[in-house]
């Protein structure tokens, strides 16, 4: 089945073209934190914007407070929540997948044990 050396050449090419996109866990954790910080800073900005806008009598100044505090803060929160969900879900799902595999194996073992017991009974009856 292995048509060497073409197969090996193909393999080398495929490896050199392979996209390595999976970030190492350390990078993933960094993004997760970036998300959390983004949300926190966003809230602070909104509160500051609100304070600024509420304490000035001058409407144009209030608008600029609202834009730099409110809108930027809101954007940070949206992006931060996005990052957090993306990377916390990735970790969570990987964990879930592993658990699934483990449980499936345990189930299988139990089924086989029962089958073996039934087989033995069958033999005894015969």
């Amino acid at each position, binding site marked *: *089945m*292995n048509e060497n050396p073409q*197969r090996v050449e193909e393999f*080398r090419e495929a*490896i050199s073209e*392979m996209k390595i996109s999976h970030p*190492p866990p350390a990078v993933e954790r960094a993004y997760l934190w970036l998300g959390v910080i983004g949300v926190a800073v966003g809230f602070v900005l909104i509160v500051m914007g609100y304070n600024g806008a509420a304490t000035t009598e001058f409407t144009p100044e209030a608008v600029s407070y609202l834009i730099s505090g409110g809108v930027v803060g809101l954007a940070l929160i949206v992006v931060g929540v996005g990052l957090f969900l993306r990377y916390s879900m990735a970790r969570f799902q990987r964990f879930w997948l592993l658990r699934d595999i483990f449980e499936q194996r345990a189930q*299988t*073992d139990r089924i086989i044990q029962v089958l*073996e017991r039934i087989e033995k009974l069958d033999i005894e009856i015969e």
Partner: protein
Amino acid sequence: MDPRQPSEANARAAAMPPELMQDPLLELEAVTAAYGRIQVLNGVDLAVPAGTVLALLGPNGGGKSTTLKVASCQMEPTSGRVKIAGRTVNGATSEQLAELGVCTIPEGRGIFANLTVRENLELATYTGKSLSAIEDRTYSFFPRLAERRHQLAGTMSGGEQQMLSMSRALSSDPVLLMLDELSMGLAPLVVEELYAVVSQVAGEGVSILVVEQFARTVLGVADWAAIMLGGRITRVGPPGELEQELTAAYLGDR
């Protein structure tokens, strides 16, 4: 390091023979790896030249399985590089590599116990091969499996299960094959049968990394052997030269 094992703690990394470094298909460079805070690989350097069989040997807990996990990208090294066909593949997934032709048979079993032999082989058709082609090849390697094609895989003997998991691996047309303790818990005769197939596959040009604890049969098949102690490769060389040292390593008088 474990203070109760001074001989392992003092184990020094071996220099690799220059022949090993010519066009390696798999290469590990100063790889360290840990489970949690416990470091189990302490700087592993290893190379498998294209088209050769390298046997990685050594006593329990030396880090052989961990080395395989890192080499197949199932586990991230804490430092160092994993290179396949000359490219650094740190951060790639084991699925990606498997798809391209890096195949690992893990310690224990890699088959579905609640499916029949034939159904297990059927699952291997996802690589695009026809079931009949896979069956033909499997039964030519292991005639015994032909008789058992409708039996549940989990109810077969350990040796037969190992044959099945090898068949599944081979059906994916691998270029680099990694085997972990093929002989675990099997009778010597069965082990010989399995290694005859390994040798046949190697003859087709597949590069193979085999991990074993006890080595008689492997050494006959391998082009190179490496001894692993305390998370380091302590010796690499031709199998013949290593046999004696290996005995010493097991007896602990290093």
